[in-house]
């Protein structure tokens, strides 16, 4: 097990390098540069710009810039924003917790509601409530999340006035509920369907018949024997989903005006702040990798037939 974890952690290094390089190259390829963006509409002396770029190391070839970035990163320096002069680390530590909170809320919503709905339908497969779930999830899967976001905003904020359409700077927990529901709804549909299928399938299994023949109470048959087995594929999905939620948060934040990673990335993109974009994307990638490792380990706990060596 220890060796497996070590190997998985080592595998993260090339993934980390690859993803940073990719984002770095994309930023490099985009037209425009931070210095010109800084100047805005004003006409500036080209020699002055060239000078500034040289100072910032932006005149160097891609590989060299990337190398400098990595060297700084390993010294704990995420770089500095050119326009605002603020350290990128500050931007990240401000925006990240908000996004993580939003994603976590969405995750909890997905897990609790999705699994409950899936179990509810799966226990009575091919009945009315099962078909109802199928239709509902199909709807959630086919409607894009920004449409759902605007709909939610329209009804709950503008029509009913239950919430503010925009989330404040502090992004309090109660303000994040609606964005979290919108963000989690797609995953919710998948989790509900996966749980439903898994429960319905395991219900028919021989060991469930044995559990009944043992005279166990229904609560125990469902809660212990059925759930332990049915959750195995769901947990696997949830692991990869945590990363997807972080990524999806970027879009949802735009709709509800949440000052999280999404708006930080948007701003940075607009100003061509390469270091900021790379730093945030890299962090998301790392969270994703760690989450999937945790899930794989959890998988082995849930299913003793899986052995990692």
């Amino acid at each position: 097990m220890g060796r497996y974890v070590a190997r998985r952690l080592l595998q993260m290094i090339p993934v980390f390098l690859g993803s940073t390089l990719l984002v770095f190259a994309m930023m490099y390829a985009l037209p425009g540069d931070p210095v010109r963006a800084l100047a805005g509409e004003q006409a500036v002396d080209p020699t002055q710009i060239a000078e500034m770029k040289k100072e910032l190391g932006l005149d160097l070839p891609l590989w060299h810039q990337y190398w400098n970035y990595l060297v700084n990163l390993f010294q704990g320096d995420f770089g500095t924003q050119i326009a605002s002069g603020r350290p990128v680390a500050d931007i990240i530590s401000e925006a990240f917790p908000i996004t993580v909170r939003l994603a976590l809320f969405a995750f909890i919503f997905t897990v609790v509601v999705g699994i409950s709905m899936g179990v509810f339908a799966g226990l009575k497969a091919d009945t009315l409530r099962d078909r109802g779930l199928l239709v509902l999830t199909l709807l959630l899967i086919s409607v894009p999340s920004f449409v759902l976001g605007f709909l939610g905003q329209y009804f709950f904020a503008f029509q009913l006035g239950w919430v503010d359409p925009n989330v404040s700077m502090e992004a309090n927990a109660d303000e994040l509920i609606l964005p979290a529901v919108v963000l989690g709804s797609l995953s919710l549909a998948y989790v509900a369907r996966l749980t439903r299928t898994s429960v319905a399938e395991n219900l028919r299994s021989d060991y469930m018949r044995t559990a009944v023949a043992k005279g166990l109470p229904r609560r125990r048959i469902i809660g212990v024997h059925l759930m332990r087995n049915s959750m195995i594929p769901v947990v696997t999905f949830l692991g990869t989903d945590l990363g997807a939620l972080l990524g999806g948060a970027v879009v949802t934040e735009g709709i509800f005006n949440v000052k999280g990673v999404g708006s930080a990335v948007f701003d940075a993109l607009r100003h061509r702040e390469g270091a900021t974009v790379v730093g945030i994307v890299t962090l998301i990638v790392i969270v994703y990798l760690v989450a999937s490792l945790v899930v794989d380990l959890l998988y082995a706990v849930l299913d003793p037939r899986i052995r990692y060596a």
Partner: protein
Amino acid sequence: MTIIDKTADVPAPRGSNDESGPLLEVRDLHVEFHTRDGVAKAVNGVNYSVSAGETLAVLGESGSGKSVTAQAIMGILDMPPGHIPKGEILFRGQDMLKMSNEERRQIRGQKIAMIFQDALSSLNPVLSVGYQLGEMFRVHQGLSKKEAKAKSIALMDRVRIPAAKERVNDYPHQFSGGMRQRIMIAMALALEPDLIIADEPTTALDVTVQAQVMDLLAELQRDFNMGLILITHDLGVVADVADKIAVMYAGRIVETAPVHEIYKRPAHPYTKGLLESIPRLDQKGQELYAIKGLPPNLLHVPSGCAFNPRCTMAQDICRTEIPALRPVTEQDGTELVGRGSACHFWKETIHG
């Protein structure tokens, strides 16, 4: 061979003191499955009984309704699509079909236990065998985790699983097929039930292991003075273990008899066919007899005797009248205890 087993107490004889009747009696049981293609009549009026300490072997080709009858007794039929339109299942004189779900649950595992054919799929793959055994004690007797574990180890010892103490936390997939079936047996035995139903307990095992598991089951049944319903399609297994035999065909009992008599003198053409299709050492090299034709489609059971399309003795009456299970007698009319046959021509079959 002597095995000194300190954990086993001398069992008190059961079933003898309270009611004098049989432990379990199935009366005119019918089970149907309502499927998309129609109604499959899996069980069409089964009657059999078992007393304490007695072994009833239920025999028949696959699809004849042996398992469905057992599931109806255990109360583990899939309902729907399953449906019991008619019949009684008396346990110690009480009809279980009229009991509440909770009453039936109290019987399952504690009074009547079941051993399934495929132990690998019938044990929960993600729970340790110790947990699955201990569950019986924790749920039904309220024992603590620790006490339950100690009991599980004792049980595993009792069914002679080597190194029980070390293996109690292992999972089903870590055991061999024979050992897994022993765990199934241990689980059924846990609360010392009055009756065990073993549904083809050795079919999934290697031939060499089959005999060991069968012997173990027979030994435990004697030691605990339990009733045993042994479902099998293998006539060879039955001779040493069973007291009496019920042969099933298309959801009916077509012949009943004490075990040794049936081998000597079958009273139903179907039983006769089954016996002739057992490979025998003294007929080595000869072509093995097989009953011709296929088991009937349960959606359209043939009219009259269900066996008539395959029977060499069939006459016109066989296609129109369902033969009832009638007592079988000697040629001079003396009663043969426990014998019955559902054939219009049982006399010709047994005496002819």
